[in-house]
């Protein structure tokens, strides 16, 4: 996977794109900082917790998808009773995320990606709260994603207004967030 990431970085630089002309300020394939390792371990712990719960599967019954999503979200809430902002984005992890986000967002093209993604504003987030289903998902710039710890398929980074969010995509649940991470 590392070689694939290296290829993507090469593509980004080689195509005269965002990173062209100057070396990236945050080397994407540099050794993972300790703060990111801590974050990755906490994500892994979340996944272990979730492993016991039923998985989604394809169906022709729309009610089944909705029912399973709600049941999954409720089960996660119960397993994570007392979960609070900062449990996964720890203080040191948040600091590292902020550094990478702000460096990456210095590029116009990256900020433009977010603007074009119909950014959501003024949404009050809570850990274990639902990501409102009627709201769109803001595009997370690929140039940013490549510089952050990779996530397993059921978890995604989201941008919600100025906040940077970790979402359980099947349960549509906010796992954690960094308030005010984006300018």
């Amino acid at each position, binding site marked *: *996977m590392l070689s*694939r*990431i290296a*290829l*993507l970085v090469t*593509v*980004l630089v*080689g*195509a005269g*794109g*965002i990173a062209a002309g100057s070396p990236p300020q945050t080397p994407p394939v540099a050794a993972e900082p300790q703060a990111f390792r801590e974050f990755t371990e906490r994500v892994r712990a979340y996944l272990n917790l979730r492993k016991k719960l039923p998985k*989604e*599967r*394809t*169906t*022709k019954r*729309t*009610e089944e*998808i*909705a029912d399973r*999503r709600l049941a999954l979200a409720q089960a996660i809430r119960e397993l994570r009773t007392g979960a609070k902002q900062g449990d996964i984005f720890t203080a040191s992890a948040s600091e590292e995320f902020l550094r990478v986000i702000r460096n990456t967002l210095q590029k116009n*093209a*990256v900020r*433009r*990606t977010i603007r*074009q*993604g*119909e950014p959501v504003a003024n949404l009050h987030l809570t850990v274990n709260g639902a990501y409102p*289903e*009627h709201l*769109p*998902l*803001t*595009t*997370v*710039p*690929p*140039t940013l*994603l*490549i510089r952050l710890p*990779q*996530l397993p*398929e059921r978890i*995604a980074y989201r941008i919600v207004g100025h906040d940077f969010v970790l979402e359980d*995509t*099947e349960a*549509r649940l906010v796992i954690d967030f960094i308030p005010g991470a984006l300018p």
Partner: protein
Amino acid sequence: MHSLRRLIFTLGVLLGGQTLSLPAQELALPLKSGSVRFAAIGDMGTGEPAQYEVAQRMLQFHQMFPFTFVIMLGDNIYGAKSPDQLQKKFDIPYKSLLDGGVQFYAALGNHDDTNERFYKLLNMNGERYYSFKKGNVHFFALDSTYLDPQQFAWLEKELAAAGTDWKICYFHHPLYSSGAFHGSSTELRTVLEPLFLKYGVQVVFAGHEHVYERIKPQKGIYYFTEGASGELRAGNLRKTDLTAAGYDKDRSFLTVEVSGDDLYFQAISRTGVTVDSGVIHRPAAVQVSAP
């Protein structure tokens, strides 16, 4: 053959008695034997009358041009995602096509819930991004709202394995667009275009801008935006040097036929007017293998 089909279609409309005031479409597609036939719709899932009218027009056109599947370019379900809303915004408008065996292959847009991938009728098989093959055409449906390194690596592997087939990618955000509301997704382009060029992707479909636009070939790749199959931003197309053809006066959908090395296309408005048509001939395919 065309005349007969047209006659049957016209009779069908007359007997059906539903749309006598609407003009019958002219078929600009050749209906070649053994061809791959599909439609493309984008930004359709409003559940509003306009979506239903486009769907009805698709159904009528299907009698003349029996496409076997539809690619969905994202924003398949706007707003609430409850089961009744999914029915209102997908099952009901396309019921006749679904009942007729037409398959739908969805890509996710920014208004979609990623859990749509679990709905069997959208043929995503539980995946945010996936590929499938029809005849000599390989399709790659991407999630452009969240193009993570895993997806990029998957795409490269899939493209490399597609050999000399036609390679068609589709996703929500257009890499090139003259739409005034969003415009071109330049960062995504920087990431995806080199891969498209390396592995010989010939055609790309996107939505997001609520207009129809065909872009002049960019580095040999043909780009279409069809984001007006339910939503519409009337007058929002600012035709630029990129624009080969465009339509922003009404809703629309696109139909495509691939036969051998030729890809024929016809864009049709809600009222049945052909707003664009033509043919793309691909040069001799060159196989590119993975690094």
